């Protein structure tokens, strides 16, 4: 049964690269979800089964040969739609693309029937080293061409569009030729990829670099935003640090309202990476996101 479904999924994925009938590259939205964390495994399969419609899976945590992690993923996949979210694609690096990594991601996506695959607009290292950080790129024509070409290579290999997420940044480069939003918007068109907007990252970077986050949102193409991350951060002196270890902050909720108005009911989730509270707490926070989307719909009606 699962095998059959998997084959159908693969053939559908192949078709996704081509323009769809209504001209939009967007995939069907999944509604409201959460980032999958090991401490919530039991609750997600037991007391709170079906509490959300989808889960975002941290790709690298499941690039293991076997054992309990993959078994949990299989069991969770029976109750939730899954999407893959990676941190090691290093799409902006000048090192060659890691094809072995891509092969593993493709296999994992097939085995868990991932609805989509995302990673970050960043580089994580050069000369074979992985710094395990999401380092910003200089926003130049050169890096735009470089990243767009690599996204296209990945998409050709994976047989589906990637979602590219904006990262929080603390430094910018003297050599940059355009803003991050200009870069990201142009990248989505040139690479024919989708976007994952992390609204907390936009808020963090806006504060750190002194730009208006609404300008960022207004510049992005509406038909490319597939997913939204909501998360928290920490203030460290004059800078905001993207710790993803706190509740969603008020300015990020305001940004979410603006994003809903611009992009519509985009699949939304809360991403908590540290200081992870009980599932109920995150569900309550997610309820606020549902409320925001509902009130927007009511306003529109």
């Amino acid at each position, binding site marked *: 049964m699962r095998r059959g479904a998997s084959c159908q999924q693969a053939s559908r994925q192949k078709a996704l690269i081509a323009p769809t009938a209504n001209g939009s590259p967007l995939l069907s939205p999944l509604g409201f979800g959460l980032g999958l964390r090991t401490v919530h495994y039991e609750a997600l399969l037991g007391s709170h089964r079906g509490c959300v419609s989808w889960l975002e899976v941290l790709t*690298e*945590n499941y*690039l*293991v*040969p*076997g*054992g*309990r*992690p*993959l*078994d949990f993923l299989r069991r969770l996949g029976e109750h939730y739609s899954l999407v893959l979210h990676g941190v*090691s694609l290093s799409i902006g*690096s*000048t090192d060659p693309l*890691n094809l072995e*990594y891509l092969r*593993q991601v493709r296999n994992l996506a097939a085995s868990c029937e991932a609805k989509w695959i995302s990673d970050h607009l960043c*580089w994580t*290292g*050069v*000369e*074979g*080293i*992985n*710094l*395990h*950080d999401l*380092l910003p790129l*200089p926003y*130049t*024509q*050169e*890096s735009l061409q*470089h990243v767009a070409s690599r996204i296209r290579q990945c998409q050709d290999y994976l047989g589906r569009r990637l979602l590219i997420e904006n990262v929080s940044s*603390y*430094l*910018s*480069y*003297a*050599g*940059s*030729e355009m803003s991050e939003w200009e870069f990201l918007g142009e990248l989505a068109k040139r690479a024919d990829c989708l976007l994952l907007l992390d609204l907390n990252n936009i808020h963090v970077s806006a504060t*750190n*670099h*002194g730009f208006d986050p609404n300008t960022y949102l207004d510049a992005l193409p509406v038909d490319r935003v597939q997913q939204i991350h909501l998360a928290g951060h920490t203030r*460290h*002196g*004059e*800078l905001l*640090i993207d710790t993803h270890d706190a509740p969603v902050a008020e300015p990020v909720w305001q940004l979410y309202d603006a994003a809903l108005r611009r992009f519509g009911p985009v699949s939304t989730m809360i991403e908590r990476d540290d200081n992870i509270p009980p599932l109920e707490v995150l569900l309550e926070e997610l309820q606020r996101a549902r409320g925001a989307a509902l009130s927007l719909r009511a306003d529109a009606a």
Partner: protein
Amino acid sequence: MTSRDLAQLQKRLQQSIIGETAFSDAAAGTRVNAATRTDVYVNAYRLRLIDALAANFPRLQRFMGTAAFAALAENYLAQFPSTSVSVRWFGDRLAQFLRDDHTSAVAPWLADLADWEWEIAAAFDSPDAPPIALVALNVAPEEWPRLRFTLHPSVRLLRLQTNAVELFSAISDDAAMPEACMLDRPQAYAIWRQEFEVRFRIQDDDEAHTLTLLGQDATFDAMCGDLCDWHEASEVPARAASLLRTWITDGMIAGVTSD
């Protein structure tokens, strides 16, 4: 900016992060200067990788203490920066690093503890394979000498010089910590996974030797031949059968074939 410029820029920032050298390509920001901005990445790098190593060696960290472990992690990171896509594999050379380090002369159990903790984790997420059942041994008597066995992919065979396993268990159980020491003679251990539970046990020398032999594609006949080093010829068939039964019942054997 050319693609060569981009490559050079990335090398310079990486060097700043790893080597804590100045990075001159950051834009001068308002309120916060460029050096402070770069330092966010420099500091985060160290903390993140120390945390990652601690996540892979939590018992070694508890045994050493947070400060001593952090110092070890910094030294390790300086020599072996991560080259894996996942921090899951960061620390793959820590046991060897500890053996090569001068501290191994005064605290040889640290390397054994690192080795042990790494292999326990490796068994946890090693490949899945259904173990064979005892019924798989129902073959004609003349086939027995030519039987070859495949170990379950989770099986790890170690030989330790110290009481690191005792230390590991005491930390795991939150029990009183025994004094770390050298053993009178090296001790063989097997680690493997049964369903999703990681198990381990001490092995007698003949068991450790023959299980290693089977893992190298030796026949049952060869196994019996080597058991003669420990047992009278008349006792060998019974010992061989007993070992095989134990391994199969424990789920350490994933396949059997006859030539």
